[in-house]
């Protein structure tokens, strides 16, 4: 895989080798990796060709002999392939370990679970920090603008590579849910069941607006350097941290913020009459921002948010969302959360309405939660019971046996 070496080009301002934790994952990911050569470029929605294409991925559990027990998990904007193992940079548990693992609702004793870093990401799949074969330097803004559909087409390459004909399920929350919908729209025969969670069939004006604020914060950082910061050994950390702070607010609910932080002060008895992080909420957001920049590339953030903004499954299907699902035999389980104002229940209902219009097989549950959009990542017993019940029943219906046994 062509990525630039941190040791030769990534020098900091003092000429010392710089130590951006995510940088080593770009070129040497702590994951399996498959690379498709120049001869097999990925045709993007923009019309551009992308080659070579690398996809870094994690798997859990065992693929059965019939290759019928595979579940693809699609990660969200700032997620990655480390869904159920300790994160190689932060050391924190996998981002969906509450849902995925032995005996968990997505049971790795039964299912072969795959999660790949998305196209445009910075954890080993080809993205703006990867080496541009034409220049021998990181792509930066020469990386083509990608779409959710392009991410899915890249995942299709991986699933082909793994020799899997049909996925038992494709599961994802938020942007992961958008990928789930694109999977069904593009590869309907290859998706037996689909679980789009806290997702939407299009990105709303409000969501585009928040993303634009984040992008402008990154671009306003002098260290961004027109997207070519890699060459200068700097990183637009401040801009990316502000983007993350703003976005983080949208993942919570007003009630959750008030309940968790209120107007409480951080490590002090009184106001400091300064711009220090007096309030707990300020301190929390600053912490979220500062830890994020250690594991994420700013340009990836630009490209991935853009892909989400461009997502409009209705527009892509002649202005009628139901057209995306005509003839679908996939069994759907659509999930939303009551306090999610970023991808509200009405967006999930639009998906359900379109599925009903083609008499598709769909279940839809709205989970009561005050945790906002983030609820899909958290311990929500009702949500987990839904996923477990849906997958168990669908597996039984297909006569799916435990991995390793005849099936």
């Amino acid at each position: 895989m062509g990525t630039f070496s941190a040791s030769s080009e990534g020098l900091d301002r003092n000429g010392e080798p710089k130590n951006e934790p995510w940088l080593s994952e770009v070129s040497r990911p702590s994951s399996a990796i498959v690379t498709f050569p120049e001869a097999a470029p990925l045709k993007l929605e923009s019309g551009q060709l992308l080659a070579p294409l690398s996809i870094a991925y994690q798997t859990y559990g065992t693929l059965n002999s019939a290759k019928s027990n595979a579940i693809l998990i699609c990660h969200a904007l700032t997620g990655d392939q480390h869904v159920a193992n300790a994160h190689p940079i932060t050391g924190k548990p996998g981002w969906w370990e509450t849902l995925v693992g032995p005996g968990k609702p997505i049971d790795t004793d039964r299912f072969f679970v795959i999660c790949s870093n998305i196209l445009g990401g910075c954890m080993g799949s080809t993205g703006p920090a990867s080496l541009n074969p034409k220049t021998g330097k990181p792509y930066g803004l020469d990386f083509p603008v990608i779409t959710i559909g392009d991410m899915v087409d890249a995942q299709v390459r991986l699933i082909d590579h793994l020799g899997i004909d049909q996925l038992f399920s494709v599961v994802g929350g938020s942007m992961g849910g958008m990928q789930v919908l694109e999977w069904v729209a593009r590869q309907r025969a290859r998706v037996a069941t689909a679980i789009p969670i806290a997702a939407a069939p299009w990105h709303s004006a409000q969501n585009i607006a928040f993303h634009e604020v984040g992008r402008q914060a990154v671009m306003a950082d002098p260290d961004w350097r027109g997207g070519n910061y890699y060459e200068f050994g700097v990183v637009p950390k401040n801009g990316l941290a502000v983007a993350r702070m703003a976005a983080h607010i949208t993942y919570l609910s007003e009630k959750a913020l008030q309940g968790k932080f209120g107007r409480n002060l951080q490590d002090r008895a009184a106001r400091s009459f300064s711009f220090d992080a007096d309030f707990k909420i300020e301190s929390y957001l600053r912490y979220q921002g500062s830890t994020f920049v250690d594991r994420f590339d700013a340009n990836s953030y630009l490209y991935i948010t853009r892909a989400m903004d461009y997502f409009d499954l209705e527009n892509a299907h002649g202005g009628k969302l139901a057209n995306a699902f005509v003839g679908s035999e996939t069994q759907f389980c659509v999930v939303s959360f009551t306090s999610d104002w970023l991808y509200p229940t009405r967006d999930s209902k639009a998906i359900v309405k379109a599925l009903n219009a083609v008499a598709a097989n769909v279940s839809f549950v709205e989970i009561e939660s005050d945790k906002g959009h983030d609820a899909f990542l958290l311990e929500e017993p009702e949500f987990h019971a839904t996923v477990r019940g849906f997958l168990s029943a669908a597996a039984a219906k297909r006569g799916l046996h435990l991995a390793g046994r005849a099936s």
Partner: protein
Amino acid sequence: MQKAVPFTGQQRADHLLIAEMVAPGSRVLDVGCGDGALLQLLAETKGVDGRGVELSREKVNLCVKRGLSVIQGDADRDLADYPDRAFDYAVLSLTIQATRDPKTVLANLLRIGERAIVSFPNFGHWLIRAQLLFTGRMPMTPNLPEPWYTTADAHLCTIKDFVDLVALVDAEVEEAVAFNAKGQRLPIRRSLSLQNLLGEKAVFKLKRRA
């Protein structure tokens, strides 16, 4: 693997009668499916490909945990989303009396399903008539236990009323069964007036007039 949550409790008499009316292996939409008992019965005894719509979020979640395909929705608002003749049967069990616009709901059922199967409590039952006659108050029976000010049953009807509505939506009765408190069926074709007096509930199988 965790087994689907089993349905516990006795089968409702109208569910057993509905199951008798449904052809094996057919596609069924159960509107107001509650905890999914009928869908589960139909899947187990008739190999039906069933879907459900239910207003209560708790009940929907219970159904999905059981592995049933159920969405949260409303018979009055959400049936319009379904295409014509998407199902062999559209079922409405003990729900029509709680809808806002029973006529439109029934018309939608007949549009979505090749057949509609509707069960409802019969307000013409003698016990209800007697209560109203002798007490001068809104009847409350084991079948209709809620007082008038809390019940969701805004559109109660008698068997005769329902037969009139069937004609109004340009449909015909293929099969009709009235049954008593013990779940014993009374063949309705003998005398509509008698069934209207003795039947506590009724199940109708309907089809569009050609």
